């Protein structure tokens, strides 16, 4: 019989190794899935997960003049990783406090709506300096939406998982209503979309020939700042204590309610920022589909990054690769987009399963008698 035996100390090595094992198992299971679907497994996995690395390698090795085109796909990975990292870093802090904000998708949408409202109401010829208030408007939109589950949890004890999730649907319908009504482009041929944002509200591109934009700097700064906060400040300590041992936290004078407010506003604000950055950098207008599913996928990012804000950067790149791979596989292998979701779900399954090894040893034992 297989039993789990607790380790005297959680294994630090396995805590770092577990995501690697999980990625390996996902590739293995993914290969089997591809074979079952009648696709060449190695070729499929290459397209899904390794193509961006190959192109990056081409860019590194080829001489100047021939290499520029190879940077596009690796840059696209980073472009996809930016919103995932921003949301994932915030969720990492939130989950550490044992507060389950799973409505980041709604907060992301509200960030895009409030940011978009600001951008669309600016006068013609707006100054580029307005990009900062645009992003702040996005943060405020996300915070406002996350304030609802925070308030209802603290005041009425309502479950934040369900409230934040329900608000995701509400935000989606609100966006749909706005782009078909108040925000609709009068010259848009009746399509449900807003006018294009003015140049002032477009994230500046950092590398010519790619879509890599300033958001990457924002995402890295945010991750580092949150990492410092969690590891080096009293606030971070408070969040960790409240999450791990709420009673001990209460004796230490930490307020559970204040922590709930703090982590929900933080993660909501970052999700809102991600929404504002994403619409400004990619679609450059408001429309019904603004990739709000990033809000859910960022949950995997947070776990893959060990609920550590810096780790979320790593997790975001891995998930972004799976997105880009999914898009390539749609074209090259005629695989449906849904396969990406299967990979992402499997990754989280394997990761959670492997995490057991951090705290437990697997032992083979004869069934006890008597």
């Amino acid at each position, binding site marked *: 019989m297989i039993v789990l035996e607790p380790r005297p100390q959680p294994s630090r090595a396995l805590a770092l190794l577990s995501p690697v094992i999980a990625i390996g198992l996902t590739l293995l299971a993914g290969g089997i899935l591809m074979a079952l679907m009648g696709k060449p497994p190695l070729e499929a996995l290459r397209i899904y997960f390794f193509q961006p690395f190959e192109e990056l390698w081409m860019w590194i090795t080829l001489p100047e003049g021939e290499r520029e085109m190879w940077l596009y796909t690796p840059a696209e990975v980073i472009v996809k990783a930016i919103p995932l990292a921003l949301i994932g870093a915030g969720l990492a802090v939130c989950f550490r406090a044992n507060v389950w904000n799973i409505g980041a998708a709604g907060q992301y949408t509200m960030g895009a709506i409030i940011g978009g409202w600001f951008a669309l109401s600016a006068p013609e010829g707006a100054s580029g300096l307005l990009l900062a208030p645009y992003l702040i408007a996005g943060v405020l939109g996300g915070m406002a939406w996350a304030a609802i589950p925070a308030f209802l949890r603290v005041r009425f004890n309502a479950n934040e998982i*369900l409230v934040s999730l329900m608000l995701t649907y509400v935000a989606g319908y609100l966006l749909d209503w706005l782009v078909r009504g108040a925000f609709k482009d009068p010259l848009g041929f009746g399509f449900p979309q807003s006018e294009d944002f003015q140049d002032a509200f477009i994230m500046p591109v950092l590398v010519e020939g790619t879509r890599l934009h300033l958001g990457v700097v924002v995402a890295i700064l945010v991750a580092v700042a949150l990492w410092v906060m969690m590891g080096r400040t009293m606030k971070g300590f408070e969040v960790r204590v409240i999450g791990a041992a709420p009673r001990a936290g209460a004796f230490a004078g930490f307020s559970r309610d204040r922590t709930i407010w703090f982590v929900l506003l933080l993660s909501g604000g970052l999700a809102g920022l991600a929404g504002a950055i994403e619409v400004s950098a990619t679609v450059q207008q408001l429309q019904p589909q603004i990739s709000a599913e990033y809000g859910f996928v960022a949950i995997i990012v947070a776990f893959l990054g060990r609920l550590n804000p810096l780790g979320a950067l790593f997790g975001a790149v891995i998930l972004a690769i799976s997105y880009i791979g999914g898009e390539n596989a749609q074209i090259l292998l005629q695989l449906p987009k849904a396969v*990406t979701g299967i990979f992402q779900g499997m990754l989280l399954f394997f990761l959670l399963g492997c995490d057991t090894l951090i705290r437990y040893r697997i032992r083979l034992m004869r069934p006890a008698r008597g």
Partner: protein
Amino acid sequence: MENFIISMIIAATPLLLAAIGELVTERSGVLNLGIEGMMLMGAVIAFAVANSTGSSALAIVAGAGAGAAMALIFSVIALSLLANQPATGLALTIFGVGASGLIGQGFVGIALDPLSKLSIPVLSDSTALGRILLSHDVMVYLALALAAGVTWFLYRTRAGLALRAVGDNHDSGHALGYNVIAIRYMATLFGGACAGLGGAYLSLAYTPMWAENMTAGRGWIALALVVFATWRPGRLVAGAYLFAAVTQLQFYGQDWGLPVPSQFLAMAPYVATIVALVIISRDVNLTKANAPACIGKPFRAER
């Protein structure tokens, strides 16, 4: 009004099926947030079976089986490997959305004959009451029968008592000699099978076709219903019908000439869920009285 009530009963059925299963799961101390994924798998597998065999009975069974298979994945990771339950449930939903989309890609745009409806001569169609009570398909009655069966099981049988005991205090349950993990496996699989039935209802009867993500958050609403019902099956039935009435507003609102944009009517079920959660949760005594004390906590036998 008659049509409104009939469509309310139909809309309540998938919610009731999924929620009654989750109620049993949660009563055993397990929080499975993957209902949405299990429902979607139930929906697509039931559709596939109905489409290829033409047998609705087989399709219903297959839908339940698909939901239970998904719940088995959850159980292995969350119960045997002691993983974080909310995270495992979310993974189940993400996986289920993807897997059902992949399986269902060939079925988009195919329509099925809906499940046949009960038709007793004279009784089923001559009066409004007959049409409201006696003109539905088998799953509408199955959902109600399941709710009654669960009530009987939880409060009138020894096994039900053991299940509740394990949910309230797994260490005591273990000390009494109950196999906590085995009980939780069974409760979780039952929950999965019910969610699969709820999904099957959507693709076989509610809208007899397959569409990606056709559950549209019903799995989450079912979760909220369990809280709203304070973990009691009787209140769950009432809650499901109440919620279904709110859902129907979006279809009847425009007929009745309500001056509200369709998007706001579509928001109604989600907003109503939040309102209901707040009303129930603010009364701590009401929730604490029936909430399983060990919900979401992993159990490992120390000896």
